[in-house]
């Protein structure tokens, strides 16, 4: 996939020993999404607008505005991932795309979070993730780092 040079993306890939259909359910059923990502009002319909809600922290209301862009069960899911509310104007306007590829022992789960602009790194106040948000979760997250 090609992108303008000034946009950056994050890719996380992991092979999981589960059928693609099962992973698809975890990615597209609201109650299951809440268990691993955030509270949400996701519906599996292209064009459906939904929000992801984390606990509010100082300088961030905890809300991410999303919209389903692509829904091809059980292979491909894509949604907008935008800063919300007062932060929307200067905040991130990004896209999260999930791709499931069957393998011999399960499925390769690939997540690409694309559309970061370099200026967001210097001016990240509106990014939907105030630094405190990360600080609050860092203890757990750091444990996953090499």
């Amino acid at each position: 996939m090609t992108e303008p040079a000034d946009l950056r993306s994050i890719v996380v890939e992991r092979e999981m020993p589960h059928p693609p259909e099962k992973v698809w359910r975890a990615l597209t059923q609201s109650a299951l999404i809440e268990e691993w990502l955030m509270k949400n009002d996701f519906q599996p319909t292209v064009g459906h607008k939904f929000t992801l809600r984390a606990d509010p922290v100082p300088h961030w209301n905890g809300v991410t505005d999303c919209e389903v862009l692509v829904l091809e069960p059980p292979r491909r899911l894509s949604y907008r991932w935008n800063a919300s509310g007062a932060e929307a104007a200067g905040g991130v306007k990004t896209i999260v795309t999930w791709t499931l590829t069957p393998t011999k022992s399960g499925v390769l789960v690939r997540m690409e979070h694309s559309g970061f602009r370099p200026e967001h790194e210097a001016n990240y106040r509106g990014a939907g993730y105030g630094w405190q948000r990360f600080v609050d979760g860092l203890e757990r997250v750091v444990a996953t780092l090499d």
Partner: protein
Amino acid sequence: MSKTHSHWVINFLMQTAPDTIFKTLADPTRRAIFERLSRDGELTVRALTDQAGVSQPAVSKHLGVLKFAGLVRNRRAGRQTHYSIEPQGLAPLIDWMGLYGAFWRDRFDRLETLLSRMDQ
């Protein structure tokens, strides 16, 4: 903010912070004031002094240094000056792409935990 969180943040800053910000937070009293504002939101100089273990002029001086480094901001209301964290203060220091990457790896872990609990 637990001690572990704080320690991690400080370690992170030591690795990445430009000189000014690093030197600003290297002072334990100043760091404690900064962490208190991170945790509790906006506070007056008096409220900060009550727990800082140093005099009000000393607290004011520390706050001035923090403000110079772009880490806090203030507003006057009557006779009181209120201080709060400058949300963009640490932004130049943080590898946001790296942190978002860490966020997603953490969520992948949770997803796998969920999948292992689900029926086929």
